[in-house]
C-alpha cells in the first residue's frame, strides 16, 4: 500500500537532490575560478550561496514537520533524521566553496606563487568525494559511501604535502611569499574540510540504509560488507 507519507518523503528526497546538485556546482565553480583566476565565477559562487541556505532551511522545516505530524519509525525515521544531518553538511560544503571563492578574489591581483599541482589534485579528490557521497544517497549505495569514508587518509596526506611545501619551501625561506602562500594554505584547508563533510554524509548514508553507526568506528567500516 502506498502511503501519502511516501509522497512526502519523495518530495523531501527531491529537495535534497536539488540542494546536492547546487552544492556540487558551487564546489566546481569555486575550483574552476581558482584554476582560471575567474573573478566573475568566484563572485557567482559567493552570490548564489543564499539559494543553498534557503534550501537548507526549507528542508529542515520539512523534516521537522514530518517528524511532528507523522511520528516516523524505522527506515522513515532514519531517512528523515539523516536528511537533516546531510543538509547541514551540504550547507557547510557550500560555505567552504564560498571561502575558496573569497581566497580566489584575494589572489586575483597577485602572481601565482607556484604552478598549482597538488591543490588541483586535492580539489579533484574533494569533488569526487562529494559527488560519490551524493550518488551513494541517490542510489542508496553503501559500497560507494564506504569508499568515500576510506578516501579520508589520502586527503590528509595531500593536505600535509601542500602544507609542508608552502610553509617550508616558501614561507620559511622567503617571508615575502607569505601573502601569496597563506590563501593557498587556506584553500587546502577548505578543501580538506569539504572532504570531511563528504565523509560525514557518507557515514550518515550507511546509517540510514543499514542502521549501523560507522562514525568514529573505523573497524566497523572496514568490516562493512553488507550487500546493500
Amino acid at each position, binding site marked *: *500500500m502506498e*502511503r501519502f*507519507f511516501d509522497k512526502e518523503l519523495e518530495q523531501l528526497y527531491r529537495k535534497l537532490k536539488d540542494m546536492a546538485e547546487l552544492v556540487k556546482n558551487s564546489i566546481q565553480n569555486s575550483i574552476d575560478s581558482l584554476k582560471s583566476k575567474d573573478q566573475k565565477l568566484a563572485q557567482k559562487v559567493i552570490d548564489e550561496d543564499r539559494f543553498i541556505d534557503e534550501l537548507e532551511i526549507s528542508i529542515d522545516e520539512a523534516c521537522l514537520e514530518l517528524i511532528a505530524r507523522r*511520528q*516516523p*519509525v*524505522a*527506515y*522513515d*525515521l*532514519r531517512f528523515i533524521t539523516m536528511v537533516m544531518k546531510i543538509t547541514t553538511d551540504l550547507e557547510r560544503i557550500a560555505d567552504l566553496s564560498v571561502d575558496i571563492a573569497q581566497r580566489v578574489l584575494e589572489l586575483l591581483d597577485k602572481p601565482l606563487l607556484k604552478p598549482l599541482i597538488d591543490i588541483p589534485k586535492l580539489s579533484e579528490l574533494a569533488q569526487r568525494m562529494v559527488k560519490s557521497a551524493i550518488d551513494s544517497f541517490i542510489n542508496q549505495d553503501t559500497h560507494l559511501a564506504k569508499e568515500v569514508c576510506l578516501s579520508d587518509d589520502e586527503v590528509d596526506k595531500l593536505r600535509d604535502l601542500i602544507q609542508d611545501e608552502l610553509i617550508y619551501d616558501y614561507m620559511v625561506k622567503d617571508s615575502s611569499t607569505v601573502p601569496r602562500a597563506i590563501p593557498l594554505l587556506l584553500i587546502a584547508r577548505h578543501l580538506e574540510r569539504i572532504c570531511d563533510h563528504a565523509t560525514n554524509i557518507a557515514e550518515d548514508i550507511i546509517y540510514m540504509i543499514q*542502521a549501523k553507526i560507522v562514525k568514529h568506528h573505523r573497524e566497523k567500516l572496514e568490516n562493512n560488507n553488507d550487500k546493500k
Partner: protein
Amino acid sequence: MSQYKINVTKLNLWYKDFQALKDINLSIKSNLITAIIGPSGCGKSTLLRTFNRMNDLIEGVRIKGEVLIDGENILDSKIDLLSLRKKVGMVFQRPNPFALSIFENIAFSLRIQGIKDKKKIETFVEKSLKSVFLWDELKDKLKSSALSLSLEQKQRLCIARTLVTMPEVILMDEPCSSLDPLATLKIEELLQYLKKDYTIVIVTHNMQQASRVSDETGFMLLGELIEFGPTKEIFTNPKDKRTEDYISGRFG
C-alpha cells in the same frame, strides 16, 4: 533470580479448528515493560490471556506448548488458577470497576483473599491507591461510588485493585484505548513507576504507545511472533520487513 519472568516455548493455541497462536517462543524479562503489537486478530490478546489462563474460559480452546512463570509450567492442569491469577493480575481495555464505593472496590479483593482485619484492609487500600497516585485525589471521597469517577481515574482504580492482590506480573490489554490522550499519558507515566516492582506485559494497537512505554516489543502477525527485541531496535531498525511495514503504516 533469573532475569526472565516468563518463558514461552513452542506455544500453539487453537479455538476449535482455528489456530490462533503458532509456535510462539518468547522470554519476558522481569521488571520491564514488554509490549505486544500487531494488527487485529493477530493473536496478541490470546497470547496475553495465556499468561493467566483466561483462555480456559473459552469453549473449544486447545493449547500445546509450555508457558513457564518463575520456572513453573502454568499450563499444567494441576496449577491452582486462583493463585495464578493472584500472581498474574490483569487490567482490561475498558475500566471495569465494580458498582461499589471506591474503598470497597479494593477492599473486595482483600476480603475474597480472606483478609478480615479492618485496620489491615484500610492500610492496603491506602497503599494501593497511593501506588497509582489516586490517594490524594480520592482520600476524602472513598465512600463515593467508583462509577462516578472519570474514565482515567476508573482505570487507575482498576490497576490499584489489581495491585492490592500483590501480583508479580501485570497483564494489560489495551489499557488506554478508551482514554483521551491526557489520561493515556497519565497511565503511561504510572507504568514507568510500577515497573520497578512488577513485570508488565501490555498489548496495544497504539504503536506510539508501545514505543513510548515499553522496553521490549514483540510484533505478531497471523498468530506468529514475527520479531521480538528491544523496543529501541524494533522502532529504529526492525530486522523483518513485515515488522517494518507494520510499524511504518504500510499495512495493518
